[in-house]
């Protein structure tokens, strides 16, 4: 099928979709008039049932915990897939020292301003990331958001240093272990509930005082485990992509031209 035919087919299909979609919208409750009971019920019950003041985190890690477990394994699998695709191939050799060999890309030296600002940001980023992970059940935050903030720390190090500095603060093995512990720990938390005679992923830890950091039972535990997994998973991705771009070389392809 050539280009024009494909575009024509798409335009016909897209137009049809749009018409049916508009037809389907007709009669739906409009924007701003939320009809469903679930959100209101959860908003009314979260604080009493789970001692968590952030209803979003409570939904993620408790009411909808089983779905989030599945989503976390999507994350785990795609990180592993990217890691597998970018691994060192049989005929690759390692560049020493690591070097960006892409043609026509001139890397300017890092300015002192970026160096100073970046280094000054490292500690606040780690503290803020840990805070966001730990306070997920109280205020906006949780494992997913905090994990991403934590994972930006090595990137800042790369930004204000170089690949060697990044290599020194990260460890492929430790990141993979942490990722596995995060993903597996979530599932294990669910299984422990079964040993207490409760359904999978039931909140079995005492709920504590509403407003405390160590409150809301398994929501806190799962949030921290998710934070570990997300942070470690993103670090594994960074390590794989950096290694692919800077370290591994195909023989006879010394100046691989990027498209």
């Amino acid at each position, binding site marked *: 099928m050539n280009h024009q035919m494909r575009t024509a087919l798409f335009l016909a299909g897209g137009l049809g979709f749009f018409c049916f979609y508009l037809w389907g919208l007709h009669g739906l409750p409009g924007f*701003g008039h939320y009809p469903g009971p679930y959100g209101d019920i959860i908003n009314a019950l979260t604080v009493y049932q789970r001692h968590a003041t952030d209803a979003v985190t409570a939904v993620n890690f408790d009411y909808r915990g089983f779905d989030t477990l599945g*989503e976390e394994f999507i994350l785990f699998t795609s990180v592993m897939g990217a890691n597998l695709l970018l691994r060192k191939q049989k005929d690759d050799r390692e560049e020493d020292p690591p070097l960006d060999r892409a043609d026509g890309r001139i890397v300017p030296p890092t300015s002192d301003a970026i160096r100073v600002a970046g280094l000054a940001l490292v500690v606040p980023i780690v503290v803020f990331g840990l805070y966001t992970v730990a306070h997920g059940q109280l205020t906006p935050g949780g494992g997913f958001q905090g994990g991403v903030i934590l994972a930006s720390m090595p990137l800042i190090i790369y930004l204000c240093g170089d690949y060697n500095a990044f290599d020194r603060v990260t460890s492929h093995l430790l990141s993979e272990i942490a990722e596995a512990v995060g993903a597996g720990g979530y599932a294990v938390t669910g299984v422990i509930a079964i040993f207490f005679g409760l359904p999978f992923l039931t909140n079995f830890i005492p709920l504590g005082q509403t407003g405390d950091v160590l409150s809301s039972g398994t929501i806190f535990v799962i949030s921290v485990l998710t934070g570990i997994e997300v942070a470690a998973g993103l670090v594994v991705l960074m390590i794989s992509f950096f290694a692919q771009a800077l370290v591994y070389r195909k023989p006879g392809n010394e100046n691989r031209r990027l498209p």
Partner: protein
Amino acid sequence: MNHLAGELFRMLPFIVAAWLFVVGLYGIVTSRHLVHLIMCLVVVQSSTYLLLLGVGYKFGAAAPIFVDIPVGTPAVDPVTHALMLTDIVVEATVMALLLALAIQAEERAGSVDPEQLRIMRG
């Protein structure tokens, strides 16, 4: 006329979501570069964010965080927010997987143009 404008505003987030979906799909269909194609997929996926937030929104309602507002204050639906926030993180990693596939396609087949990648080789 006024009625139509009101109807349009009532459905605006859903219409914009459909627009993002179709525009991203158009980019995928006509793409000549794998990285461009992956970015278009991100546009397609971002339509779901708008759809979910549009479904869960309530006029005059607060965020569903009951720290400084008493329980019982009207708040937007936390379920759609929860769906969306896991989606964002998962999408980022799935995008990394697709970009890794693009790198491998470039290394194996020497091209990142989907038109050139038509012939499969064992």
